[in-house]
């Protein structure tokens, strides 16, 4: 817990954090604006957070924003830091972090494919990854309805229940 307090203090001292949350003892959530995200990540990487565990996005459709979540991990202290930033939904463009964490390359491609967030500086990220010949909205967006798509594209089996018995006398 001590190293956690120190970390929070240090980050607060160096950066203007919009919000700091502690969901559990070894986890820290920090919200930061887009401008300072790279600096924060570089700093974290330099101070022991050498691993990018996950990069993903959350579609807050009611606020009309995408929230990018960068999860970095320090194996020595066991602390995960979730760095979050928000992007406008209609102008979902951000800069790549592959310069800091090269492992982000495919995560960015992943987020681009499923949310439509473009990452400038990561050419590969614009190519399709999991989906092939996809022609709809990016599927993880909240306004995409997978069931309707599935019904349209992949017809269901219409069953003919011929087996339904007639019950003689039931009180």
């Amino acid at each position: 817990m001590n190293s956690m307090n120190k970390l929070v203090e240090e980050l607060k001292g160096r950066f203007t954090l919009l919000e700091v949350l502690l969901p559990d003892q070894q986890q820290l959530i920090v919200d930061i604006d887009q401008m300072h995200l790279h600096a924060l990540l570089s700093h974290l990487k330099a101070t022991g957070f050498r691993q990018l565990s996950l990069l993903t996005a959350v579609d807050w459709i009611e606020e009309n924003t995408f929230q990018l979540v960068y999860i970095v991990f320090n194996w020595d202290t066991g602390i995960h830091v979730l760095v979050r930033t928000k992007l406008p939904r209609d102008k979902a463009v951000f800069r790549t972090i592959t310069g800091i964490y090269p492992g982000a390359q495919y995560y960015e491609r992943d987020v681009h494919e499923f949310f439509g967030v473009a990452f400038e500086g990561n050419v590969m990220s614009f190519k399709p990854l999991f989906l092939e010949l996809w022609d709809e909205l990016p599927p993880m967006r909240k306004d995409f309805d997978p069931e309707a798509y599935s019904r349209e594209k992949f017809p269901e089996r219409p069953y003919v229940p011929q087996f339904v018995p007639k019950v003689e006398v039931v009180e």
Partner: protein
Amino acid sequence: MKEVKLFLGPQHPGMHGNYSAHMYVEGDMINKSYALPGMLHRGFEKLMERRHWMGNLALIPRICVIEPDPNEMVYAMSIEKLAGIEVPERAHWIRMIILELARLAANLMAIGGIGAPVGLYTSVYWGVADRDLVLDIFEKITGARVYHMYIVPGGVRKDLPEGIEEEILGLLDYIEARLPEFYDLVMRSPIFQTRTRDNILLPEEVVWELGVTGIGMRSAVNKEYDIRKVKPYARYDQVAFSLPYGPYSDAFTRVDFKYVEMAQSISIIRQSIEKMPKEGPVRARIATGSALRWRVPPGMVYSCVESARGEYGYLVVSDGREMPYRIAVRGSSYPQGLLGVEKYLPGHRIDDASLWMDTMGVCAPEIDR
């Protein structure tokens, strides 16, 4: 020599699962390669947003078929953190037994499977048959062989059946006795040694560059980097175990570590059976009401466990309704399966490609989701 395009997978016996790599080959050297994932993409993360917190129980184990239980565990852990639930003591120990049995099964499969790319088919036969005995135990505990749906938010779904502890201990004795035989068969086989020693190296920089975790990481960075040690969940802080680590990671070490880890799993299960409270509650309710109306307080939390291939995590976001708002999955082998294939598979020979996939622990379903 002319450069040739070559597929590895998806329907290749050396490929574990429905996964593919596009390779540009000159002679038998791979010059360039790209992973082609998505053959197992089912849109899990989307589907999970469309089901109740409890209904997702049926969905989550299906993300990774080799070792489904870490999925259940991280999901349960996330919800417990969000809702602030205390899991009953006995449930923690039962969860550990289940997770370690799952690791054992996955490692048996992996050790058996390693025989395929090197041409040692006996090990496949042995590994799979012994894994089946673990599945029999799973069937008795959870009611299914592969998709257990046993670790639920708040605890476990049902108490252990009576007398299962003896059966588990019996199985552990059997597997422990089998391990040296496996070792003789696989590790001491000259073919295997020739193929794996000083082959398919994983230097420390690459580990950090890609974000490789699990055995790959431990064998390269010379530190006991394991989620069970670094941030213990369940009751891993109350059992004694030590994991192998080293500074030099070649294919041989990585397979070798699997053996050691199996022995550790066996030891953890034994300790758990001994230490766990013999009775007591095994499940806490996560919310009031019927499961149709269980709600999880709003928030965002990341939970991770150590699967047989490394850090396995879920990012769970709740907006306080009866369904998750967003769940993102961190598959353990995502880094090496995608970026790794692109950057570090080139330079190897074609015949080592499946060995590369295998010893790096590339698991298609958890990458594709």
